[in-house]
């Protein structure tokens, strides 16, 4: 066992998989000599060489296309987008190509590639270094989308993603990378966390909160506050956004009768909408209150100036307030 940050957990997972499987290689901007702008890939090039840890030119569409082509030729590429904000040039390759290689060829070809990207705000990254983009990709059949919250899951899920035979988007919340408060003891023995399983990280009866990444941690904090007020909040860590663990989500609301979804991304058409829609259909008879969503405001992206950025971000206070209202409905 060793105490690890999110960042170390991802890095450890990469090291282990690259040692285990020669076909795994890493490519992206500044991932080699620089070890990544967040240093997630630090040390990889030294151990595995320039052939397996590639500093690419600045072109996200190319990074995705090269990864896809290499995957079709027997490799297991792990492509890094320096920020999730800059994944848009690769959307054609990810949505039209990676997600459809197996389908369009009726299983003739496959595309086992992992696309890593740091996402999320509250780090004074401004409009273009704070985005959440999970809503775009979790809508797309053929893709798998992962957004863990705890170091243990980050490691177990990056390893599962690399071994998966289909394209996986792996989103890492940059504000949690080195957050001391969420460090975890991680076993030194090998383990995998299965894709497609959510986790009830806090049992409760008053209402169910669904979240991932930074918002999951803030929801847990808010849940503590409400405990002192006599409310008993259940918190579900979604971990995988596609394929979603519908059973865990629905069962939680069948128990509590109340649902709150929390994410940073703006609300309209955001990931929370799907959770709400599923519950409004499949848990309808169990609902005791409207399904609530707490999300970023309907503005194009997160402003840089601190007062405005703070205004944008959900936080434990806002979440606690939303819990209170819903609990008292």
């Amino acid at each position, binding site marked *: 066992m060793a105490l690890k940050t999110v960042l170390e957990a991802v890095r450890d997972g990469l090291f282990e998989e690259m040692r285990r499987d020669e076909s795994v290689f890493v490519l992206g901007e500044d991932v080699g000599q620089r070890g990544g702008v967040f240093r997630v890939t630090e040390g990889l090039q030294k151990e595995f060489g320039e*052939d397996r840890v590639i500093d690419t030119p600045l072109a996200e569409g190319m990074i995705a*296309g*090269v990864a896809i082509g290499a995957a079709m*030729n027997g*490799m297991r*590429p792990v492509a890094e987008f320096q920020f999730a904000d800059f994944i848009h040039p690769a959307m054609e390759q990810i949505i039209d190509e990676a997600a459809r290689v197996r389908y369009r*060829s009726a*299983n*003739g070809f496959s595309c086992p590639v992992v696309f890593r990207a740091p996402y999320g705000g509250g780090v004074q990254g401004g409009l273009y270094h704070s985005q959440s983009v999970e809503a775009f990709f979790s809508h797309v059949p053929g893709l798998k989308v992962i957004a863990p919250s705890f170091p243990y899951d980050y490691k177990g899920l990056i390893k599962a993603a690399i071994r998966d*035979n289909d394209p996986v988007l792996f989103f890492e919340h940059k504000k949690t990378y080195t957050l001391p408060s969420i460090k975890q003891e991680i076993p030194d023995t090998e383990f995998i966390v299965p894709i497609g399983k959510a986790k009830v990280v806090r049992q409760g009866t008053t209402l169910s909160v669904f979240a991932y990444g930074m918002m999951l941690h803030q929801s847990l904090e808010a849940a503590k506050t409400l405990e002192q007020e006599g409310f008993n909040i259940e918190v579900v860590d979604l971990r995988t956004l596609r394929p979603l663990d519908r059973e865990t989500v629905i069962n939680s609301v069948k128990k509590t009768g109340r649902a709150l979804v929390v994410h940073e991304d703006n609300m309209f058409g955001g990931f929370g909408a799907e959770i709400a829609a599923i519950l409004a259909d499949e848990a309808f008879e169990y609902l005791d209150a409207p399904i609530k969503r707490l999300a970023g405001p309907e503005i194009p992206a997160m402003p840089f100036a601190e007062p405005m950025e703070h205004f944008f971000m959900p936080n434990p206070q806002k979440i606690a307030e939303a819990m209170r209202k819903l609990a008292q409905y």
Partner: protein
Amino acid sequence: MRTTDKVALNGAGEAKSPQVQSVDQPTTSGARHEVLGLKRETLQQIHYQLLLARFFDERIWMLNRQGKTAFVISSAGQEGTQIGIAHALQPGHDIVFPYYRNLALVLALGATPREIMLGQLSKAEDPSGQGRQMPSHFGLPRLNIMTVSSPVATQLTQAAGAALASKIKKDDKVTAVFVGDGGTSKGDFHEALNFASVHCLPVIFVVENNGYAISVPLSKQMHIQNISDRAAGYGMPGVTVDGNDVLEVYRVAKEAVERARSGGGPTLIEAKTYRYRPHSSSDDDRFYRSREEVEEWKHKDPVERFERYLEEQSLLDNATKQKVRKDVKRAVDEAQDYAEKAPYAAPEMALRYVYDEEVR
């Protein structure tokens, strides 16, 4: 990469297009094909494949008019380029990323008329995807013919990626990728050639310049005479070739493939050619080009030119000409006959193969 032998047909009783042999050894002097080291059998293959592709093409337009297939996109006029390149490759070993215009290419690489016709008629046995994709969206795992999609130029960076994998694995494979003149305007072209050159990858980029992106002529696509001039901007060799001269195409392709295989890096090949048909069965080219222009190009027909060459070399007599025509007709008849009788995939099959079904 996994194979679909379950649907890739190699059954008996089927007229196969001859397989391409690995490149013969060149001699230094004599007739063009001798200088290129092309044996008589190879010339006969090329001849057969040129006629097969042309005849197959005419047949599917007929099927379209008869309402038996909803979509046709044609290689007619561009067979010289595609078959010339095919013979410089090692089919089944090398990796090929075609585009929708490459009927002649995939036949020359060894796809059978039956396999292609099953795709044209969107039947369950279609080895490219059980009829999921539009016709001419090729894909044949057993020949490393990578699955084709519709978005133009996306295959270029993928080809660079496949070649990168070959470089890492040292598997001695060369990757060949095909794109039209229109596709060279998309950023993918720039990003792919640049990456391939930086990493000195074993890949050849083949641009089939037929003068149009649907209706948009070259003059509205680019301000240069030769697309191959762009190679210099990536520090790679670039060559423009008469795409209707199959032997000349073969010559430049062979050189590029050998360079790639021996670690010399990528090459950009521009083949100047022309499509005889509208862009596809959904197009009407009278909106944007004159009949005279089309007729003019037909005088440079790659099939006729190659037959003339064989005749000049007295490697082809009338009897053989007629026999080959009979052979290709039989091959296509058989393919059509089989494919028309073949069943469609069941509707619910649409739900299959979204993800790997062998795990969980």
